[in-house]
């Protein structure tokens, strides 16, 4: 029996980068085949080609042994291919049913919508595959885990046989990931074939029947979980020996730098996103805030950095109250903010590099003299920082948009870490970066911590938290459900906390203490 899907010699180039380089890939019926690679390896490009969003420069696609011409998503859908994208393709102001039926609406006379009919079918699929949803709910009102189920129902509604899941676990708690895996196995058992894209090694070992590793646009190898190991996969992904730990000395603690008391913050919709959170961070330690994205971390960081109003509670930095302070005042108190969305908040992409290096310090001496800008000082400082932080760029005058993601993040880090700072607030500092840049950022963070800076690290990547944090706080639905010392923070424990299944009372909240060196994976 021919494989249900075969990709042969697929190549795709974008300006300046060869995203896919003669890739061969097969998918057997009823298998869960993981496509593994780090950010930028070409996985999403390949799947977008399969789904008709891109056209390949070279190569062919065969479905059930027959050549398939896919030039647009509707072709892919017609061939039985469905894709759940990394960033959900759901319309928040529509209901579940409307989202599912969009594009294949049941109509009367081809014009008027028959919502009830579609809702019935949604319920049918929901029951058949164990995907619990309320067809009449508005997507903006349902949690992320349920939204994902809607996405899966969407593709099953269109009778997909080949399912592509692009980084589906990015927004899920460990428990929700387990649930998703159960659903995936059920789908596979019922004859569906699944391509599972990820950069997370452990997931791949847990769920995949076969694993194909992509690196720099090329297939590096295809194996089965039984025949390989985490470190082997990691090396294949990156192309060299990967040390999955960071050398970290025990923290040398100082005074309390950031003190947060009963903080309450509202989100854009007016609901309370942060519901009375308290913690503090001392000089010389890294406090990691773990939690699935969407549990109030974004709002917490925005409130701490002055970008969002505080509804209640207090924030003190080195004794000074900054609860309602402006971003500039907070900056001037010695706070560095590495923002979650570097391209939107952290940089002006249309500016040359050197302007971004002084984006928040341009008005201070030596860069300015009252309101007059001193360009020579800026140029000198920019040159120095580019060197010190290893920013790969032909000149300090190039437009920032031309830099790679990793280099852009280095610009932000260079800017923030060149100021005298007492507190660093880093939100998802390594999102979307290649391993080399991730290592670099991690090293800089630990370096700053050893210099006596307090660091608040907010990240949905458990591995990052486990690698870097001295203490771990877990956020769930706007509250901190626990603060643990690093050695007590096991993935299982954190997983339970992140899912809200558990919470630790105040008395068990750890105090920072001196401890022996810790090594994590």
């Amino acid at each position, binding site marked *: 029996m021919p494989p249900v899907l075969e990709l042969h010699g697929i190549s795709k180039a974008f300006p300046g980068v060869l995203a896919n380089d003669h890739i061969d890939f097969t998918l057997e019926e009823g298998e869960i085949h993981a496509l593994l690679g780090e950010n930028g390896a070409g996985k999403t490009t390949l799947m977008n080609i399969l789904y008709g969003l891109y056209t390949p420069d070279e190569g062919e696609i065969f479905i059930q042994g027959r050549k398939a011409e896919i030039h647009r998503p509707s072709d892919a859908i017609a061939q039985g291919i469905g894709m759940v*994208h990394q960033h959900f393709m*759901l319309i928040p102001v529509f209901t579940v049913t409307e989202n599912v039926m969009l594009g294949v609406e049941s109509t009367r006379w081809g*014009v008027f*919508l028959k919502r009830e009919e579609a809702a019935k079918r949604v319920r049918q699929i929901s029951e058949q595959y164990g995907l619990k949803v309320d067809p009449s709910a508005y997507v903006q009102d349902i949690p992320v885990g349920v939204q994902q189920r809607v996405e899966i129902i969407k593709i099953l509604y269109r009778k997909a046989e080949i399912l592509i899941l692009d980084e589906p676990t990015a927004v899920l708690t460990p428990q929700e990931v387990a649930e998703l895996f159960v659903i995936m196995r059920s789908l596979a058992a019922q004859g569906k074939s699944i391509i599972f894209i990820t950069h997370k090694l452990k997931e791949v070992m847990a769920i995949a029947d076969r694993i194909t590793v992509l690196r720099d646009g090329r297939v590096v190898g295809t194996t089965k979980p039984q025949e390989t190991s985490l470190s082997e996969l990691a090396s294949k992904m990156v192309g060299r020996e990967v040390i999955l730990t960071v050398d970290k000395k025990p923290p040398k603690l100082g005074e309390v730098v950031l003190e947060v008391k009963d903080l309450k913050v509202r989100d854009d919709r007016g609901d309370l996103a942060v519901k009375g959170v308290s913690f503090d961070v001392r000089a010389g330690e890294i406090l990691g805030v773990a939690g699935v994205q969407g549990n109030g971390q974004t709002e917490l960081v925005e409130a701490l950095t002055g970008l969002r*109003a505080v509804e209640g509670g207090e924030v003190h930095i080195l004794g000074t109250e900054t609860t309602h302070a402006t971003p500039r005042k907070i900056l001037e108190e010695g706070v560095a903010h590495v923002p979650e969305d570097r391209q939107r908040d952290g940089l002006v992409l249309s500016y040359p590099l050197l302007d971004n290096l002084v984006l928040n310090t341009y008005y201070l001496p030596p860069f300015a003299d009252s309101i007059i800008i001193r360009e020579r000082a800026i140029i000198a400082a920019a040159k120095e920082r580019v060197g010190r932080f290893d920013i790969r760029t032909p000149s300090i005058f190039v437009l920032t948009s031309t830099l790679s993601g990793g280099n852009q993040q280095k610009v932000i880090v260079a800017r923030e870490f060149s100021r005298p700072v007492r507190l660093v607030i880093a939100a998802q500092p390594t999102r979307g970066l290649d391993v080399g840049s991730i290592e670099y950022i991690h090293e800089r963070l630990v370096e700053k911590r050893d210099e006596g800076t307090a660091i608040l690290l907010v990240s949905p990547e458990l591995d990052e938290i486990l690698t870097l944090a001295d203490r771990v706080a877990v956020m769930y639905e706007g509250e901190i459900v626990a603060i643990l010392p690093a050695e007590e923070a096991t993935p299982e424990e954190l997983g339970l906390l992140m899912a809200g299944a558990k919470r630790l009372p105040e008395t068990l909240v750890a105090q920072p203490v001196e401890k022996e060196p810790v090594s994590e994976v």
Partner: protein
Amino acid sequence: MTVAIRPISRALFQRERAMGLLFALLGLAIIALFGPSAGPEQEATFVLNFGQAGKTTPIPDLVLPVQEAIYLLGLLALFLAGFQLVRGFKATNLILGAIIFLSILAFLIWATRGKSFNLTGMLGHMLLRGAPIALGALSGIWCERSAVINIAIEGMMLSGAFTSVVVASITRNLYLGLLAAVLTGGVLAAWLAVLAIRFKVDQIVAGVVINIFAAGATSFLTARVLVENPALNDSGTFRPIAIPLLSRIPVIGPIFFETNIIIYSMLFLVVVTHIILFYTRWGLRSRAVGEHPLAADTLGINVFRTRYINVIIGGMIAGLGGTYFTLGSAGRFDELMTAGKGFIGLAAMIFGKWNPFGGFASSLIFGFADSLQVKLGILGGNIPYTTEPLPSEILLMAPYLATMIVLAGVVGRAIPPAADGKPYEKQ
């Protein structure tokens, strides 16, 4: 862009307070401005019959004691203000609209003291003056629901007005003129669409281009051609068509069922737009394109084609709106005769939350303000506490001030289609 609105919770609170204060201010203004200067025994007579005698069922005039009525209205406004300050309303827009309505009512009663005034006539006039604004709002809705901002409604109206007159004058057929206007609006909209969708020109810049072009071309051709050939500038106007039976209903009849085809079309389009947007496949897909074009694209919907079609339909409606000024009232074209109605239509669209019925209701409010300044010329009247006649220019400013107030109070809360204004990039 929410930049100016964050920090949001404080702003929300402040806005509620500000609204409450605004309401209170209006209430006090009602009482202070209009109450005392009315004589104690004065009455305002509101004639409610309109239209041809004998065609509508006659009903008696409405006579109101002036001072009592004004104080009542003022107190009502103050009550609402108090409620807003203490508890706050959910639908603040609605209450704002209601209080503005009360103020205008009080003003009318005051202006009519000792005289008689045809209320139904004025309401009919309100529908008339609001019609082009409603058509402008509808045009905006069709475009913006698919995430294309149409600043060029004004230019499309103007061009529609021009071609309608010329074609109607040449063919001596008003309906052909109407058709010409619709087509002109469609062509200009296609131009906007090509610039914004294909060439990814900023939608506001593209709209400004069309507006400037329309103003220039119509004025140029008017001065160059129409002045020399007045026969080309004499189209005649549509006569009102009375719908049998329905037009005999008192008050409502003469307003809604005894008017010209342009108004009927507008009313029809409001309903049809609503049905299409929310009950048909096309509407669902168009709204999807406006909210999340990438999602729609991944589901096989042609984002570009959808936008093109909706923008062109929007343009055609705007062209129809232009005929209001010519075939619907003046019977001739004068340079720049649309006088900003297209822009006010956009404000009505925003105030109506991008919904057809909301836009219609909002345009009635604007139409009201507009018709006021005409009717008040008849009433005369002085500035309160003085013997100075109210200058008409102040009243002419009313619609524009109203627009600004509306925008200020509303925009931060009103949520446009999510992809509004952003060109769609295909990979």
